[in-house]
């Protein structure tokens, strides 16, 4: 008989909880959001021995159940609500060998909620090197639980863990600490008022403002008014609880945990002395960033060119081979170039996430937070803002979600507001195609000139983010003192499985999410470009025939151009041309900009659609753009107009999804509106200055 049980994976950050999750569920996982909030929810299915099937929920990392952020709050809210459909039958607390003491704090708290709790001690492969020995049997006995010593890295002990999960019913739910001993008077009177409730759960409800069983909570507020004391009283009790728990943990570890310091190697110390050095730390960080951008450019050009050419061939093939009742023009000129515009960025996005996940997995990111904090504070940001700003180079949406662990609201708000200035992967296609067009493929001091310009634009994004933060910092009122506590994890070699899963998942979500928008807009654009109002559009052939022409080919070309100019799309583009002409753009670019306000990555697809309709002779988008001329014969894409266009895309707020997430995270329409207006104004001015400067 098969039965389904709920398993919750809980643990401190940096314990390899995600690796354990990946081992349990493999590719059978899906990510989503918790209802109403944007905390990422990772769930997967795991087959256990004895025909048991488990739904595994990977909860956000937390140091204790005293939640101080939205992410952490998810954990306590779930554990207090028995009616939640995800309420765990068994909790698995993942700890790591070296920080077992601190990890056990969370373990004892969860155990005291009367949930069967298994302790996983991960990274057993590090034990010998660190001179650690653990008596797991004695530990299990003292904690009244099962202890699985595993190494997610070497895939050791996972089978044993599965066995423990399947037989969770044998695990005692006896608490580690009796909460009464913290303050007998207070807890005594509390249990008199609510004789039927678990005292520790009550205490959790009082100290965290959770909305579990709302009715019950209201009742308690009325009857228990005498028990709700000042926050300082509660905080003192929390500290007392923490001390008591550590006393208990110390007494346990004294018997079963031996660390022989003479055997420990000091790799961490040696690496830290270099990586957090006040000079070398910065030099290394800069070199790492530079290498990443060079690699992004150099390594991805081959697969990208390949994809570009393949889609061009595919489009030609479709035009001649698709039966006419299937609308071959829509497929060949609208849908295929639109799809090509998405697929072409897969190599680069995958590579960017490769680097970001490696920096995270190795533990290097925390060192960056450490060396950058003081510098960032000058701009009203926190060292923790560095991670959102760097993640912003992938996508602003997860980056804005990553601001949650910034404790101070002002620092967090400023980070949210300026993150969209960083160069997200959606800007990359725009930059790549324009750089390829206007910057020669030469080497300057051994570095690729195109790669250098790309890096300059990444720097420009960061610089603008910092400048905007500085301005906001000066005009916004100061609030409470900021707390800043960052764990500095051990250095680790990244786990291939985690890196690959991150890349696959993020790339997939880009292709699917952005892809939908791009495809829809491509089709809409094609329709608008192939239809036009009234007689001027319908009589196109006759109008073009009036002009003197040499060949049939020239006639076809002139006809397409005429049609585009008089289509609905052409009319919109022409309408805004006076506004964008000072920036060096023609009405075709105008169309691309207008359509980009839904999502930037639409730019290239739009140009592909527009130029394909306008001129079917050339093979690839880039060649088509290079051949584009103003009516007076001068090229449209010059150094000045290309740079101006890049500056516009660098600063403008052209992403509906980002606006939506900012609205959600700040809980107001005010901030996203400010972003939209201010960023677009900055973009226009920046592009104007750039064009005027370079064309002078």
């Amino acid at each position, binding site marked *: 008989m098969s039965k389904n049980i709920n398993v919750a994976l809980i643990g401190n950050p940096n314990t390899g909880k995600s690796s354990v999750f990946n081992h349990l569920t493999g590719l059978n996982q899906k990510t989503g959001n918790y209802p109403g909030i944007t905390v990422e929810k990772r769930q997967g299915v795991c087959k256990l021995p004895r025909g048991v099937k488990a739904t595994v929920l990977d909860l956000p990392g937390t*140091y*204790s159940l*005293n939640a*101080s952020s939205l992410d952490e709050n998810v954990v306590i809210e779930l554990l207090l609500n028995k009616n939640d459909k995800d309420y765990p039958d068994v909790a698995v607390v993942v700890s790591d060998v*070296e*920080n077992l*003491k*601190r990890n056990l*704090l969370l373990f004892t708290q969860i155990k005291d909620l009367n949930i069967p709790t298994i302790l996983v001690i991960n990274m057993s492969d590090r034990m010998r090197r660190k001179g650690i020995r653990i008596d797991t049997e004695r530990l299990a006995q003292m904690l009244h639980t099962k202890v699985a010593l595993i190494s997610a890295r070497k895939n050791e002990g996972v089978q044993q863990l599965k066995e423990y999960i399947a037989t969770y019913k044998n695990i005692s739910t006896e608490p580690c600490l009796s909460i009464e001993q913290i303050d007998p008077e207070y807890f005594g009177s509390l249990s008199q008022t609510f004789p039927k409730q678990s005292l520790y759960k009550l205490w959790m409800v009082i100290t965290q403002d959770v909305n579990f069983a709302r009715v019950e909570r209201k009742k308690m507020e009325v009857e228990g008014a005498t028990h709700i004391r000042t926050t*300082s009283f509660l*905080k*003192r009790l*929390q*500290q007392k609880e*923490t*001390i008591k728990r*550590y006393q208990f943990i110390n007494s346990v570890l004294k018997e079963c945990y031996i660390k022989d310091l003479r055997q420990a190697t000091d790799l*961490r*110390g040696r690496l*830290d*002395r270099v990586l*957090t050095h*006040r000079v070398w730390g910065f030099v290394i960080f800069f070199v790492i960033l530079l290498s990443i951008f060079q690699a992004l450019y150099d390594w991805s050009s081959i697969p990208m060119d390949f994809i570009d050419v393949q889609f061009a061939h595919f489009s030609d093939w479709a035009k001649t081979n698709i039966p006419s009742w299937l609308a071959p023009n829509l497929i060949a000129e609208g849908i295929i170039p639109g799809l090509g515009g998405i697929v072409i960025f897969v190599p680069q996005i995958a590579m960017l996430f490769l680097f970001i996940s490696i920096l995270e997995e190795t533990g290097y990111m*925390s060192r960056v*937070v*450490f*060396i950058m*904090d*003081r*510098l960032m504070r000058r701009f009203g940001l926190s*060292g923790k803002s560095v991670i959102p700003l760097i993640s912003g180079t992938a996508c602003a949406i997860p980056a804005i979600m990553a601001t949650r662990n910034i*404790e101070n609201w002002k620092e967090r708000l400023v980070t949210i507001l300026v993150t969209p200035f960083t160069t997200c992967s959606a800007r990359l296609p725009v930059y790549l195609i324009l750089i390829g067009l206007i910057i020669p493929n030469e080497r300057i001091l051994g570095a690729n000139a195109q790669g250098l310009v790309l890096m300059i634009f990444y720097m420009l994004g960061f610089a603008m983010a910092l400048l905007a933060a500085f301005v906001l910092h000066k005009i916004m009122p100061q609030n409470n*003192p*900021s*707390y*800043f*506590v*960052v*764990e*500095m*994890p*051990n250095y680790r070699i990244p786990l291939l499985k985690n890196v690959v899963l991150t890349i696959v998942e993020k790339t997939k979500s880009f292709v699917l999410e952005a892809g939908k928008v791009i495809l829809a807009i491509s089709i809409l654009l094609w329709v608008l470009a192939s239809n036009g109002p009234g007689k001027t559009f319908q009589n196109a052939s006759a109008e073009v025939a009036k002009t003197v022409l040499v060949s049939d080919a020239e006639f076809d070309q002139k006809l397409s151009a005429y049609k585009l100019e008089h289509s609905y799309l052409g009319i919109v583009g022409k309408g805004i041309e006076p506004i964008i002409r000072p920036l060096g753009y023609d009405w075709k670019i105008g169309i691309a900009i207008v359509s980009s306000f839904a999502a930037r990555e639409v730019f290239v697809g739009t140009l592909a659609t527009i130029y394909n309709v306008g001129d079917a002779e050339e093979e690839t988008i880039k060649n088509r753009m290079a051949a584009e001329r103003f009516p007076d014969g001068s090229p449209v894409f010059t150094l000045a107009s290309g740079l101006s266009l890049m500056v516009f895309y660098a600063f403008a707020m052209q992403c509906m999804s980002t606006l939506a997430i900012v609205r959600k995270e700040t809980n107001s329409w005010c901030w996203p509106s400010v972003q939209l207006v201010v960023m677009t104004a900055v973009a226009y001015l920046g592009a104007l200055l750039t064009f005027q400067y370079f064309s002078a």
Partner: protein
Amino acid sequence: MTLADLEIGDSAIIDSFDVELLPMKLIEMGCLPGNEVGLLQLAPYRDPLYLDIAGAHLAIRRETAARIFIRKKSE
């Protein structure tokens, strides 16, 4: 003396602090009276501080460190 007075390589014992002025997270990570604390690194401008508190490695800002009173190790 407070934590902010330490130099790189120094270590001491946490003596006392006002629990209301410290983030709970710090206390949970082992910042409790009686525990040993060592200063491992300082970022530029001597802020933040990279500490080893009873085996836990973490970074805090100088303003927070200045609220934690310490005493010399008795040996």
